């Protein structure tokens, strides 16, 4: 299996937990607060970024522990060669700095993405379609980053340049026009790359989703709506042209920070935000699976699904299991009880999670 011999030490409520003998399906079952999602979070650290809770590193270290934590696993690349040892964590003397080791050598978190494609879906993402446009932009940026590591750099530089321009617009005095020119040059350069990255992602997801039927999962139709000109020269011109308007508004009103991801339910042509909770969940699952397929091209994949099965009716649950079974990615799921997983319990590796300990249960 791609990921095996997973160890968590001093991670959240786990002192020392080891998960051996993983399979295609891996189930973590236990009461609320037992530490199931903590295992998924630990696995999500094998991707670049802050993990599936977007938490600070210091929060991940076990309270009352040494102040540091470690997560490791063996990655089988299925090419007949020895598995690769992945490790990440913090040291007690520098709890805010994430260390990454690949086969014992120090590496960067970005480097992890070259080995393994990790995607996840958590209940915290359930409100994505009704949430702010900003939350959807962050979401598509995270998906885009998994396919193109350079995307993060454009996003952060654009963000900084935007705050610079807004500060200039918000000043008491008329902004210095040469200074505005200089900031807008940066804004247009990173903004057009950022917008192009998002547009490409939505295009790829759309073509992946178009292969799916409308049933039993509601199929989402995604549209990327640019918040300004996408081409660098045009964006620069537009920013320059709209200085007066932006000065009156005291902030920048055009550019990729105004992008929107529009989601319709393909069958009914209904905005996702107006669909039922179950339909929204089904569409999120469809996007997550499509992204996992895209991300796992050329490298092993891992899919972390937190509390997913419980939200689905039996028909959709079976359909989900069938799709996951057909997919390449190793699947990790959590639930408070085993019953919803009956259909796959025979082929899955099952662990009971009890107050920060894991016990193999099947």
């Amino acid at each position, binding site marked *: 299996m791609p990921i095996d011999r997973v160890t968590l030490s001093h991670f959240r409520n786990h002192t020392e937990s080891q998960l051996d003998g993983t399979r295609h399906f891996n189930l973590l079952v236990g009461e609320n607060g037992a530490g199931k999602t903590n295992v998924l979070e630990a696995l999500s650290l094998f991707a670049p970024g802050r993990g599936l809770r977007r938490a600070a590193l210091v929060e991940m270290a076990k309270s009352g522990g040494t102040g540091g934590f470690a997560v490791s696993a063996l990655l089988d690349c299925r090419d007949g060669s020895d598995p690769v040892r992945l490790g990440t964590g913090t040291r007690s003397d520098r709890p805010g700095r994430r260390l990454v080791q690949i086969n014992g050598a120090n590496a960067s978190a*970005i480097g992890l993405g070259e080995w393994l494609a990790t995607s996840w879906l958590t209940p915290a993402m359930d409100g994505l379609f009704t949430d702010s446009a900003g939350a959807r932009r962050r979401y598509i940026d995270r998906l885009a980053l998994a396919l*193109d*590591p*350079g995307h993060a*750099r*454009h996003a952060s*530089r654009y963000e*900084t*340049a935007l*705050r*610079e*321009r807004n*500060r*200039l617009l918000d*000043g008491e005095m008329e902004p*210095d026009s*040469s*200074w505005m*020119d*200089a*900031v807008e*040059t*940066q804004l247009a350069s990173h903004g057009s790359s950022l917008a192009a990255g998002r547009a490409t992602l939505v295009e790829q997801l759309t073509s992946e989703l178009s292969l799916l039927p409308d049933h039993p999962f509601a199929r989402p139709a995604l549209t990327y709506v640019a918040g300004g000109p996408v081409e660098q020269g045009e964006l620069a011109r537009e920013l320059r042209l709209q200085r007066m308007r932006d000065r009156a508004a005291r902030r920048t009103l055009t550019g990729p920070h105004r992008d929107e991801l529009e989601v319709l339910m393909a069958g009914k042509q209904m905005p996702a935000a107006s669909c039922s909770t179950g339909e929204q969940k089904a569409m999120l699952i469809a996007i997550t699976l499509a992204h996992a397929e895209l991300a796992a091209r050329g490298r092993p994949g891992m899919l972390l699904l937190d509390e997913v099965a419980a939200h689905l009716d039996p028909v959709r649950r079976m359909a989900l299991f069938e799709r996951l079974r057909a997919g390449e990615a190793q699947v990790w799921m959590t639930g408070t009880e085993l019953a919803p997983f009956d259909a796959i319990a025979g082929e899955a590796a099952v662990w009971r999670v009890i107050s920060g300990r894991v016990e193999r249960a099947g």
Partner: protein
Amino acid sequence: MASQEIETLASALARLPGLGPRSARRAVLWLVKRRETALAQLVGALVEVQEKLVECAVCGNVDTRDPCGICADPRRDQRALCVVEDVADLWALDRAKLFTGRYHVLGGRLSALEGVRPEDLTIDKLIGRMEAGGIDEVVLAMNATLEGQTTAHYIAERLEGYPVRITQLAHGLPVGGELDYLDEGTLAQALRARRPMA
């Protein structure tokens, strides 16, 4: 437990970049053991620098004379001017001994968020040097950060209309770097900045 004076010295040294309390105590102990030699020499050097330290009125470099050693050096090319953000950048460039012209230290970089405005930098002084004439080329050697590049664009625009060639340090492939280790952003920069083989 060391005396108050020694603690004061240790805590002053601890604030030096790259040192910290532990290294500072070690340095103090080392100095104390060599009171007549190393300590005396250090005290003398510190006093001398403190007394003579001045900022060069021409370029903004820090030296013990004004104009600084670089501005006063007749062998330096007066027609080329390299603009840097800070004195540290000037020293880094000059250590390489490749640039034969003179420098201009801005004293920072533009940042609306940190409240650093054009008038907080020595940009007017730079324009004054342009007005005085005799300069053919201005090399903008800003950091490759967002603020550094914004500053470079700003200066380039302010220098429009002066009969000088404005150039910028190349961004891209580091010397000794291997292509397959570079991120795509850096590779894209390197590709954009490609030039004909000499």
